[in-house]
């Protein structure tokens, strides 16, 4: 899980062009949207693309988005639960 969280932080920074941040600047449980990293709705779409590109996971129910993308840790938990072999 720790490695996955580290990988995710690097991938999020690259995918969302968060060049002002380093992986260590992002807390595992820090909110990704609004008061946390301040991501917006377009970033949410990029996170969906990230899951598909790096982990071959398609978000089946968009309603789950807010819970899955709450933090890097919740994303990692979702990936662990849904990753195909």
């Amino acid at each position: 899980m720790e490695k996955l969280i580290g990988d995710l932080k690097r991938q999020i920074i690259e995918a969302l062009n968060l060049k002002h941040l380093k992986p260590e600047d992002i807390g595992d449980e820090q909110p990704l949207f609004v008061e946390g990293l301040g991501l917006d709705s377009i970033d949410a779409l990029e996170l969906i693309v990230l899951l598909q590109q790096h982990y071959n996971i398609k978000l089946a129910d968009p309603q789950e988005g807010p819970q899955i993308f709450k933090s890097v840790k919740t994303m990692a938990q979702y990936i662990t639960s849904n990753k195909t072999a």
Partner: protein
Amino acid sequence: MNYINRHCKIQKRILSAGGEVLYKNNDGSLDDFLEAGLKSLHISYPKFYKMDRPSKLGFLGAEVLLRDEVLLERYAPQEVAVVMASAHSSLDTDLRYFESMKTIASPALFVYTLANIVAGEICIRHGIKGENAFFVLPAFDASQLYAYVEMVMASQKTKACLAGWADVMGEQHDVFLYLVEKTNTAGLDHSVEHLQKLYQMNYGKVDRRP
């Protein structure tokens, strides 16, 4: 009578304002130059890194143009207009988006596949809510920009207009922005001749910074 009170350029990897070179660097890509240019102005604006090249160029140009100036201290948001033009519209980004479609289309690129997004980024940054227009022209056309800006300035509600040219295709870039106001602070009439001269002036020869 309207006046050109400020002007700036980004040409040949040189960032300049009012004839003064603020930053120049030929190393790396255009994106590297633009990001280093922003840092050289000590500006922190995380969204800049998410912008496409046309928006980065126009945004950086506006930062240089309006440095040490807060327009909204003198004008209401609705009193400032933005009139811009380019030759390549959003083609640079359109092609990058087309490439991304070969795998998974990028939503972040898609939102920049319109010519006038750059004007929106400038308006968001500076709180501008006045008239705006974006023209796609074969080349910089001082007459057309002059005529439209004069028309906008003739309206009762517009008191200032950020105008100019911001064109990019690949590594080729050309930005010339200027601020037109009803009051004269720089002694330069808003005219086709002055716009043409300012656009053609080689700022690169004037370097007052180490």
